[in-house]
Protein backbone atom coordinates (compact mmCIF):
# COMPACT_ATOMS: atom_id res chain seq x y z
CA UNK A 1 0.00 0.00 0.00
CA UNK A 2 2.83 2.40 0.78
CA UNK A 3 4.23 1.94 -2.71
CA UNK A 4 1.11 3.42 -4.29
CA UNK A 5 0.65 6.14 -1.72
CA UNK A 6 1.21 9.52 -3.34
CA UNK A 7 2.68 10.77 -0.07
CA UNK A 8 5.46 8.19 -0.14
CA UNK A 9 8.59 10.35 -0.56
CA UNK A 10 9.81 8.89 -3.84
CA UNK A 11 9.66 12.06 -5.88
CA UNK A 12 6.61 11.04 -7.88
CA UNK A 13 5.01 14.45 -7.40
CA UNK A 14 7.70 15.94 -9.65
CA UNK A 15 6.73 13.74 -12.59
CA UNK A 16 3.96 14.99 -14.89
CA UNK A 17 4.57 12.24 -17.47
CA UNK A 18 4.66 14.82 -20.23
CA UNK A 19 1.54 16.67 -19.13
CA UNK A 20 3.36 19.95 -18.47
CA UNK A 21 4.61 20.06 -22.07
CA UNK A 22 1.24 18.95 -23.44
CA UNK A 23 -0.57 21.68 -21.52
CA UNK A 24 1.90 24.32 -22.70
CA UNK A 25 1.14 23.64 -26.37
CA UNK A 26 -2.59 23.26 -25.84
CA UNK A 27 -2.83 19.52 -26.40
CA UNK A 28 -4.41 19.01 -22.98
CA UNK A 29 -7.02 21.68 -22.31
CA UNK A 30 -9.90 19.99 -20.53
CA UNK A 31 -11.23 16.66 -19.27
CA UNK A 32 -11.73 15.24 -22.76
CA UNK A 33 -8.24 16.02 -23.98
CA UNK A 34 -6.80 14.78 -20.69
CA UNK A 35 -8.63 11.50 -21.17
CA UNK A 36 -7.27 11.17 -24.71
CA UNK A 37 -3.74 11.83 -23.47
CA UNK A 38 -4.01 9.43 -20.54
CA UNK A 39 -5.38 6.68 -22.75
CA UNK A 40 -2.45 7.13 -25.13
CA UNK A 41 0.22 7.18 -22.43
CA UNK A 42 -1.10 4.07 -20.72
CA UNK A 43 -1.13 2.26 -24.07
CA UNK A 44 2.45 3.24 -24.91
CA UNK A 45 4.98 4.13 -22.23
CA UNK A 46 2.57 2.75 -19.64
CA UNK A 47 2.73 -0.74 -21.12
CA UNK A 48 6.51 -0.61 -21.39
CA UNK A 49 6.90 0.44 -17.77
CA UNK A 50 4.37 -2.11 -16.54
CA UNK A 51 6.06 -4.88 -18.50
CA UNK A 52 9.53 -4.13 -17.14
CA UNK A 53 8.14 -3.72 -13.63
CA UNK A 54 6.38 -7.09 -13.84
CA UNK A 55 9.46 -8.74 -15.32
CA UNK A 56 11.68 -7.52 -12.50
CA UNK A 57 9.11 -8.45 -9.87
CA UNK A 58 9.43 -12.07 -10.99
CA UNK A 59 13.17 -12.14 -10.35
CA UNK A 60 14.31 -13.53 -7.03
CA UNK A 61 17.99 -12.75 -6.95
CA UNK A 62 19.15 -11.40 -10.31
CA UNK A 63 22.79 -11.26 -11.26
CA UNK A 64 24.41 -8.00 -12.24
CA UNK A 65 24.50 -9.29 -15.82
CA UNK A 66 20.74 -9.88 -15.86
CA UNK A 67 20.07 -6.40 -14.51
CA UNK A 68 22.53 -5.00 -17.05
CA UNK A 69 20.55 -6.52 -19.91
CA UNK A 70 17.30 -5.18 -18.46
CA UNK A 71 18.86 -1.73 -18.18
CA UNK A 72 20.03 -1.83 -21.81
CA UNK A 73 16.67 -3.00 -23.06
CA UNK A 74 14.73 -0.36 -21.18
CA UNK A 75 17.15 2.39 -22.22
CA UNK A 76 16.80 1.35 -25.88
CA UNK A 77 13.06 2.02 -25.57
CA UNK A 78 13.53 5.51 -24.14
CA UNK A 79 14.97 7.67 -26.89
CA UNK A 80 14.99 11.07 -25.19
CA UNK A 81 18.09 11.63 -23.04
CA UNK A 82 16.01 13.86 -20.77
CA UNK A 83 13.50 11.06 -20.24
CA UNK A 84 16.25 8.55 -19.51
CA UNK A 85 17.84 10.88 -16.99
CA UNK A 86 14.49 11.53 -15.33
CA UNK A 87 13.71 7.82 -15.16
CA UNK A 88 17.02 7.10 -13.43
CA UNK A 89 16.46 10.05 -11.11
CA UNK A 90 13.02 8.77 -10.10
CA UNK A 91 14.53 5.33 -9.68
CA UNK A 92 17.23 6.67 -7.39
CA UNK A 93 14.68 8.55 -5.27
CA UNK A 94 12.44 5.52 -5.01
CA UNK A 95 15.38 3.31 -4.10
CA UNK A 96 16.43 5.69 -1.33
CA UNK A 97 12.94 5.94 0.11
CA UNK A 98 11.98 2.30 -0.35
CA UNK A 99 15.17 0.90 1.12
CA UNK A 100 14.13 2.25 4.49
CA UNK A 101 11.10 -0.05 4.37
CA UNK A 102 11.92 -3.12 2.27
CA UNK A 103 15.05 -5.16 1.83
CA UNK A 104 16.10 -8.35 0.17
CA UNK A 105 18.50 -9.78 -2.39
CA UNK A 106 16.77 -8.15 -5.34
CA UNK A 107 16.86 -4.72 -3.71
CA UNK A 108 20.55 -5.21 -2.94
CA UNK A 109 21.21 -6.25 -6.53
CA UNK A 110 19.44 -3.17 -7.93
CA UNK A 111 21.22 -0.91 -5.44
CA UNK A 112 24.65 -2.04 -6.61
CA UNK A 113 23.88 -1.41 -10.31
CA UNK A 114 26.64 0.51 -12.04
CA UNK A 115 24.25 3.20 -13.18
CA UNK A 116 21.14 4.33 -11.34
CA UNK A 117 18.36 1.89 -12.13
CA UNK A 118 15.32 3.04 -14.06
CA UNK A 119 12.18 3.71 -12.04
CA UNK A 120 10.16 0.65 -13.24
CA UNK A 121 13.10 -1.61 -12.37
CA UNK A 122 13.28 -0.25 -8.84
CA UNK A 123 9.52 -0.43 -8.44
CA UNK A 124 9.52 -4.04 -9.59
CA UNK A 125 12.29 -4.87 -7.14
CA UNK A 126 10.32 -3.43 -4.22
CA UNK A 127 7.18 -5.28 -5.25
CA UNK A 128 9.20 -8.49 -5.19
CA UNK A 129 10.78 -7.59 -1.84
CA UNK A 130 7.34 -6.87 -0.42
CA UNK A 131 6.10 -10.28 -1.54
CA UNK A 132 4.02 -9.01 -4.45
CA UNK A 133 3.39 -10.69 -7.78
CA UNK A 134 4.18 -9.55 -11.32
CA UNK A 135 0.48 -8.83 -11.62
CA UNK A 136 0.67 -6.50 -8.62
CA UNK A 137 3.74 -4.86 -10.11
CA UNK A 138 2.08 -4.16 -13.45
CA UNK A 139 -1.02 -2.75 -11.75
CA UNK A 140 1.12 -0.53 -9.55
CA UNK A 141 3.07 0.73 -12.52
CA UNK A 142 -0.06 1.63 -14.48
CA UNK A 143 -1.46 3.33 -11.40
CA UNK A 144 1.71 5.39 -10.93
CA UNK A 145 1.48 6.70 -14.46
CA UNK A 146 -2.24 7.44 -14.27
CA UNK A 147 -1.78 9.26 -10.98
CA UNK A 148 1.14 11.29 -12.36
CA UNK A 149 -0.85 12.36 -15.42
CA UNK A 150 -4.06 13.24 -13.60
CA UNK A 151 -2.54 14.98 -10.61
CA UNK A 152 -0.34 17.09 -12.88
CA UNK A 153 -3.34 18.08 -14.97
CA UNK A 154 -5.24 19.16 -11.86
CA UNK A 155 -2.32 21.28 -10.69
CA UNK A 156 -1.61 22.84 -14.07
CA UNK A 157 -5.13 23.41 -15.38
CA UNK A 158 -7.19 23.61 -12.19
CA UNK A 159 -9.49 20.84 -13.43
CA UNK A 160 -12.16 19.53 -11.08
CA UNK A 161 -10.53 16.70 -9.09
CA UNK A 162 -13.82 14.77 -8.98
CA UNK A 163 -14.18 14.81 -12.74
CA UNK A 164 -10.56 13.90 -13.20
CA UNK A 165 -10.98 10.99 -10.80
CA UNK A 166 -13.79 9.77 -13.03
CA UNK A 167 -11.50 10.07 -16.06
CA UNK A 168 -8.84 8.06 -14.28
CA UNK A 169 -11.33 5.38 -13.28
CA UNK A 170 -12.79 5.15 -16.78
CA UNK A 171 -9.46 4.88 -18.57
CA UNK A 172 -8.06 2.70 -15.82
CA UNK A 173 -10.67 0.05 -16.62
CA UNK A 174 -9.22 -0.19 -20.11
CA UNK A 175 -5.87 -1.16 -18.62
CA UNK A 176 -7.35 -4.57 -17.86
CA UNK A 177 -6.85 -5.53 -21.50
CA UNK A 178 -3.10 -5.32 -20.99
CA UNK A 179 -2.99 -6.59 -17.42
CA UNK A 180 -3.64 -10.08 -18.74
CA UNK A 181 -0.13 -9.93 -20.19
CA UNK A 182 1.52 -9.48 -16.79
CA UNK A 183 2.37 -13.15 -16.37
CA UNK A 184 3.69 -13.25 -19.93
CA UNK A 185 5.86 -10.20 -19.26
CA UNK A 186 7.24 -11.93 -16.18
CA UNK A 187 8.52 -14.88 -18.19
CA UNK A 188 9.27 -13.39 -21.63
CA UNK A 189 12.83 -12.76 -22.76
CA UNK A 190 13.43 -9.13 -21.93
CA UNK A 191 14.09 -8.30 -25.59
CA UNK A 192 10.50 -9.28 -26.35
CA UNK A 193 8.88 -6.96 -23.82
CA UNK A 194 6.75 -4.17 -25.29
CA UNK A 195 8.54 -1.21 -26.84
CA UNK A 196 5.50 0.98 -27.52
CA UNK A 197 6.18 4.67 -27.79
CA UNK A 198 5.29 7.88 -29.53
CA UNK A 199 7.40 10.27 -31.55
CA UNK A 200 6.11 13.43 -29.88
CA UNK A 201 6.37 11.82 -26.45
CA UNK A 202 10.12 11.72 -26.99
CA UNK A 203 10.52 15.04 -28.83
CA UNK A 204 8.46 17.08 -26.37
CA UNK A 205 10.07 15.44 -23.35
CA UNK A 206 13.48 16.44 -24.67
CA UNK A 207 12.27 19.99 -25.21
CA UNK A 208 10.59 20.16 -21.79
CA UNK A 209 13.76 19.10 -20.02
CA UNK A 210 15.44 22.24 -21.32
CA UNK A 211 12.88 24.78 -20.14
CA UNK A 212 14.29 27.39 -17.82
CA UNK A 213 11.19 27.42 -15.63
CA UNK A 214 9.10 24.29 -15.11
CA UNK A 215 7.18 22.74 -12.28
CA UNK A 216 7.97 19.12 -13.12
CA UNK A 217 11.11 17.15 -13.88
CA UNK A 218 9.46 15.33 -16.77
Amino acid sequence: MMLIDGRFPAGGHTNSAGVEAAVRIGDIRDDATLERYLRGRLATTGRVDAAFCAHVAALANPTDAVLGVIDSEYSARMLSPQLRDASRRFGRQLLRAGSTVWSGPIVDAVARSQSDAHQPVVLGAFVAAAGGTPDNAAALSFHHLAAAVTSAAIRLLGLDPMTVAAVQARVGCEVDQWMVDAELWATSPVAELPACGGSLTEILAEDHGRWDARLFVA
Partner: protein
Amino acid sequence: MGRRSDCCASPVKGHGSIVVASGGPTCRSTLHSSYSEPPFSIRQCGERILVAASAAAPVGGDALTLDIAVLTGAHANIGTVASTIVLPGPTGAPSRMSTRCTVGVDAHLEWVGEPTVSVIGSDHTITTTVDLDQSATCRVVEEVSLGRSDELSGRLRLVLRIERGGRPLVHHDETFGPNVAGSGSVVSVGDARHVVSEVLVGVDAGQSRVTMFEGCRVGWLPVADDVVMMLGVGPNRPAVRAAVASIRP
Protein backbone atom coordinates in the same frame (compact mmCIF):
# COMPACT_ATOMS: atom_id res chain seq x y z
CA MET B 1 -20.72 -10.01 -58.62
CA GLY B 2 -19.15 -13.22 -57.49
CA ARG B 3 -18.81 -14.27 -53.92
CA ARG B 4 -15.86 -12.81 -52.08
CA SER B 5 -13.99 -16.10 -52.06
CA ASP B 6 -14.43 -16.37 -55.83
CA CYS B 7 -13.29 -12.93 -56.77
CA CYS B 8 -10.29 -12.34 -54.59
CA ALA B 9 -6.71 -12.99 -55.53
CA SER B 10 -4.67 -14.83 -52.90
CA PRO B 11 -2.54 -12.79 -50.54
CA VAL B 12 1.06 -12.30 -51.60
CA LYS B 13 3.70 -14.07 -49.51
CA GLY B 14 6.69 -12.49 -51.22
CA HIS B 15 10.30 -12.79 -50.21
CA GLY B 16 13.44 -11.04 -51.33
CA SER B 17 17.06 -11.13 -50.28
CA ILE B 18 20.06 -8.95 -50.93
CA VAL B 19 23.67 -9.82 -50.20
CA VAL B 20 26.18 -7.01 -50.60
CA ALA B 21 29.91 -7.69 -50.70
CA SER B 22 32.92 -5.48 -50.87
CA GLY B 23 34.53 -5.42 -54.30
CA GLY B 24 37.74 -3.90 -52.96
CA PRO B 25 38.78 -0.39 -51.97
CA THR B 26 37.34 1.25 -55.08
CA CYS B 27 34.01 -0.53 -55.01
CA ARG B 28 32.60 -1.36 -51.62
CA SER B 29 29.04 -1.94 -52.74
CA THR B 30 28.67 -4.92 -55.05
CA LEU B 31 25.43 -6.83 -55.30
CA HIS B 32 26.87 -10.24 -54.54
CA SER B 33 23.59 -12.05 -54.93
CA SER B 34 19.91 -11.44 -54.73
CA TYR B 35 16.66 -13.31 -54.81
CA SER B 36 13.33 -11.77 -55.50
CA GLU B 37 9.77 -12.90 -55.80
CA PRO B 38 7.00 -10.47 -56.64
CA PRO B 39 6.50 -7.78 -55.48
CA PHE B 40 10.26 -7.35 -55.11
CA SER B 41 12.50 -6.56 -58.03
CA ILE B 42 16.08 -5.91 -56.98
CA ARG B 43 18.62 -4.10 -59.14
CA GLN B 44 22.01 -2.45 -58.75
CA CYS B 45 21.78 1.11 -60.05
CA GLY B 46 25.19 2.73 -59.93
CA GLU B 47 26.23 3.03 -56.31
CA ARG B 48 22.80 2.09 -55.00
CA ILE B 49 20.86 -1.10 -54.79
CA LEU B 50 17.20 -0.45 -55.33
CA VAL B 51 14.08 -2.42 -54.64
CA ALA B 52 11.30 -1.79 -57.11
CA ALA B 53 7.76 -3.03 -56.72
CA SER B 54 6.83 -5.42 -59.50
CA ALA B 55 3.29 -5.84 -58.18
CA ALA B 56 0.78 -3.83 -56.19
CA ALA B 57 1.69 -4.69 -52.63
CA PRO B 58 1.22 -4.71 -49.79
CA VAL B 59 -2.50 -5.26 -49.87
CA GLY B 60 -4.34 -6.52 -46.80
CA GLY B 61 -3.37 -10.13 -46.14
CA ASP B 62 0.08 -9.86 -47.72
CA ALA B 63 3.16 -11.00 -45.81
CA LEU B 64 6.40 -9.75 -47.28
CA THR B 65 9.94 -10.40 -46.05
CA LEU B 66 13.22 -8.93 -47.16
CA ASP B 67 16.59 -10.12 -45.89
CA ILE B 68 19.64 -7.92 -46.29
CA ALA B 69 23.18 -9.07 -45.53
CA VAL B 70 26.10 -6.67 -45.75
CA LEU B 71 29.28 -8.70 -45.70
CA THR B 72 32.64 -7.84 -44.18
CA GLY B 73 33.95 -4.46 -45.28
CA ALA B 74 31.07 -3.70 -47.63
CA HIS B 75 29.18 -0.42 -47.75
CA ALA B 76 25.62 -1.01 -48.87
CA ASN B 77 23.41 1.82 -50.05
CA ILE B 78 19.96 0.33 -50.40
CA GLY B 79 16.62 1.96 -51.01
CA THR B 80 13.32 1.73 -52.74
CA VAL B 81 12.40 3.23 -56.10
CA ALA B 82 9.04 4.65 -55.18
CA SER B 83 6.65 5.15 -52.32
CA THR B 84 4.85 2.11 -50.99
CA ILE B 85 1.09 2.48 -50.99
CA VAL B 86 -0.49 0.27 -48.34
CA LEU B 87 -3.97 -0.75 -49.41
CA PRO B 88 -6.70 -2.57 -47.53
CA GLY B 89 -7.49 -6.03 -48.80
CA PRO B 90 -10.88 -7.51 -49.58
CA THR B 91 -11.02 -9.54 -46.39
CA GLY B 92 -9.89 -6.91 -43.89
CA ALA B 93 -6.85 -8.99 -43.00
CA PRO B 94 -3.74 -7.09 -41.89
CA SER B 95 -0.59 -7.01 -43.98
CA ARG B 96 3.02 -7.01 -42.89
CA MET B 97 6.48 -6.26 -44.18
CA SER B 98 9.52 -7.53 -42.32
CA THR B 99 13.05 -6.46 -43.16
CA ARG B 100 15.91 -8.23 -41.44
CA CYS B 101 19.39 -6.80 -41.85
CA THR B 102 22.74 -8.14 -40.74
CA VAL B 103 25.81 -5.96 -41.08
CA GLY B 104 29.21 -7.57 -40.75
CA VAL B 105 32.67 -6.56 -39.59
CA ASP B 106 33.63 -3.02 -40.65
CA ALA B 107 30.58 -2.89 -42.88
CA HIS B 108 28.02 -0.12 -43.29
CA LEU B 109 24.34 -0.21 -44.18
CA GLU B 110 22.55 2.77 -45.64
CA TRP B 111 18.84 1.89 -45.80
CA VAL B 112 16.75 4.78 -47.05
CA GLY B 113 13.29 3.81 -48.14
CA GLU B 114 10.83 6.06 -49.92
CA PRO B 115 7.73 6.82 -47.82
CA THR B 116 5.12 4.27 -46.92
CA VAL B 117 1.66 5.74 -47.46
CA SER B 118 -1.03 4.33 -45.20
CA VAL B 119 -4.38 4.34 -47.01
CA ILE B 120 -7.63 4.52 -45.07
CA GLY B 121 -8.88 1.08 -44.11
CA SER B 122 -5.49 -0.61 -44.29
CA ASP B 123 -3.81 -2.35 -41.34
CA HIS B 124 -0.11 -2.77 -41.87
CA THR B 125 2.91 -3.61 -39.73
CA ILE B 126 6.45 -2.80 -40.77
CA THR B 127 9.14 -4.54 -38.74
CA THR B 128 12.77 -3.68 -39.33
CA THR B 129 15.57 -5.35 -37.40
CA VAL B 130 19.22 -4.49 -37.84
CA ASP B 131 21.90 -6.68 -36.31
CA LEU B 132 25.21 -4.84 -36.40
CA ASP B 133 28.61 -6.28 -35.73
CA GLN B 134 30.36 -4.34 -32.98
CA SER B 135 32.46 -2.59 -35.65
CA ALA B 136 29.60 -1.97 -38.09
CA THR B 137 27.70 1.25 -38.69
CA CYS B 138 24.42 2.18 -40.30
CA ARG B 139 21.95 4.83 -41.29
CA VAL B 140 18.35 3.66 -41.36
CA VAL B 141 15.66 6.07 -42.55
CA GLU B 142 11.95 5.33 -42.45
CA GLU B 143 9.21 7.68 -43.61
CA VAL B 144 5.48 7.32 -43.39
CA SER B 145 2.64 9.41 -44.76
CA LEU B 146 -0.51 9.06 -42.74
CA GLY B 147 -3.18 8.94 -45.40
CA ARG B 148 -3.49 10.25 -48.90
CA SER B 149 -4.43 13.90 -49.39
CA ASP B 150 -7.53 14.84 -47.43
CA GLU B 151 -8.03 11.25 -46.25
CA LEU B 152 -7.52 9.62 -42.90
CA SER B 153 -4.80 7.02 -42.62
CA GLY B 154 -5.23 3.36 -41.96
CA ARG B 155 -3.63 1.64 -39.02
CA LEU B 156 0.13 1.52 -39.40
CA ARG B 157 2.57 0.02 -36.93
CA LEU B 158 6.31 0.61 -37.19
CA VAL B 159 8.68 -1.57 -35.22
CA LEU B 160 12.38 -0.82 -35.33
CA ARG B 161 15.03 -2.70 -33.38
CA ILE B 162 18.74 -2.13 -33.84
CA GLU B 163 21.35 -4.18 -32.00
CA ARG B 164 25.11 -3.84 -32.00
CA GLY B 165 27.23 -6.70 -30.83
CA GLY B 166 24.08 -8.33 -29.49
CA ARG B 167 23.09 -5.38 -27.31
CA PRO B 168 20.06 -3.24 -28.12
CA LEU B 169 20.63 0.34 -29.19
CA VAL B 170 17.13 1.32 -30.27
CA HIS B 171 13.81 -0.46 -29.91
CA HIS B 172 10.84 1.64 -30.91
CA ASP B 173 7.35 0.38 -31.65
CA GLU B 174 4.84 3.04 -32.71
CA THR B 175 1.33 2.65 -34.05
CA PHE B 176 -0.46 5.36 -36.02
CA GLY B 177 -4.06 5.66 -37.07
CA PRO B 178 -7.35 7.29 -36.20
CA ASN B 179 -8.47 4.48 -33.90
CA VAL B 180 -5.26 4.06 -31.95
CA ALA B 181 -5.29 4.96 -28.24
CA GLY B 182 -4.16 8.56 -27.85
CA SER B 183 -4.55 9.32 -31.56
CA GLY B 184 -4.52 13.05 -32.21
CA SER B 185 -2.68 13.79 -28.98
CA VAL B 186 0.98 14.57 -28.49
CA VAL B 187 1.50 11.11 -27.05
CA SER B 188 1.60 10.08 -30.68
CA VAL B 189 2.09 12.59 -33.48
CA GLY B 190 -0.72 15.08 -32.80
CA ASP B 191 -2.22 16.18 -36.10
CA ALA B 192 0.92 15.47 -38.11
CA ARG B 193 0.56 13.69 -41.44
CA HIS B 194 4.16 12.82 -42.16
CA VAL B 195 6.69 11.14 -39.88
CA VAL B 196 10.40 10.54 -40.39
CA SER B 197 12.67 8.46 -38.21
CA GLU B 198 16.35 8.11 -38.81
CA VAL B 199 18.90 6.15 -36.80
CA LEU B 200 22.57 6.90 -37.23
CA VAL B 201 25.14 4.53 -35.76
CA GLY B 202 28.80 5.49 -35.93
CA VAL B 203 28.51 9.26 -35.78
CA ASP B 204 29.45 11.88 -33.22
CA ALA B 205 26.08 12.16 -31.49
CA GLY B 206 26.91 15.33 -29.57
CA GLN B 207 24.17 17.06 -27.60
CA SER B 208 20.47 16.52 -28.00
CA ARG B 209 18.45 19.25 -29.61
CA VAL B 210 14.86 19.93 -30.57
CA THR B 211 13.56 22.32 -33.15
CA MET B 212 10.29 23.74 -34.37
CA PHE B 213 10.36 24.48 -38.07
CA GLU B 214 7.45 25.38 -40.35
CA GLY B 215 4.91 23.54 -38.21
CA CYS B 216 7.19 20.54 -37.72
CA ARG B 217 8.83 19.21 -34.58
CA VAL B 218 12.11 17.42 -34.83
CA GLY B 219 14.33 15.87 -32.17
CA TRP B 220 17.98 14.90 -32.42
CA LEU B 221 18.15 12.34 -29.64
CA PRO B 222 21.49 10.72 -28.81
CA VAL B 223 21.08 7.25 -27.36
CA ALA B 224 24.84 6.66 -27.07
CA ASP B 225 27.97 8.66 -27.78
CA ASP B 226 27.92 7.48 -31.40
CA VAL B 227 24.25 6.66 -31.88
CA VAL B 228 21.42 9.08 -32.64
CA MET B 229 17.72 8.66 -33.20
CA MET B 230 16.23 11.52 -35.13
CA LEU B 231 12.46 11.88 -35.09
CA GLY B 232 10.48 14.40 -37.11
CA VAL B 233 6.76 14.98 -37.49
CA GLY B 234 4.87 17.56 -39.48
CA PRO B 235 2.15 18.34 -42.00
CA ASN B 236 3.78 17.04 -45.16
CA ARG B 237 6.93 15.50 -46.58
CA PRO B 238 8.70 18.64 -47.85
CA ALA B 239 8.22 20.41 -44.53
CA VAL B 240 9.43 17.48 -42.43
CA ARG B 241 12.43 16.87 -44.67
CA ALA B 242 13.40 20.54 -44.43
CA ALA B 243 13.02 20.43 -40.65
CA VAL B 244 15.12 17.28 -40.41
CA ALA B 245 17.78 18.90 -42.58
CA SER B 246 17.82 21.93 -40.31
CA ILE B 247 18.72 19.91 -37.23
CA ARG B 248 21.61 17.95 -38.70
CA PRO B 249 25.06 19.01 -37.53
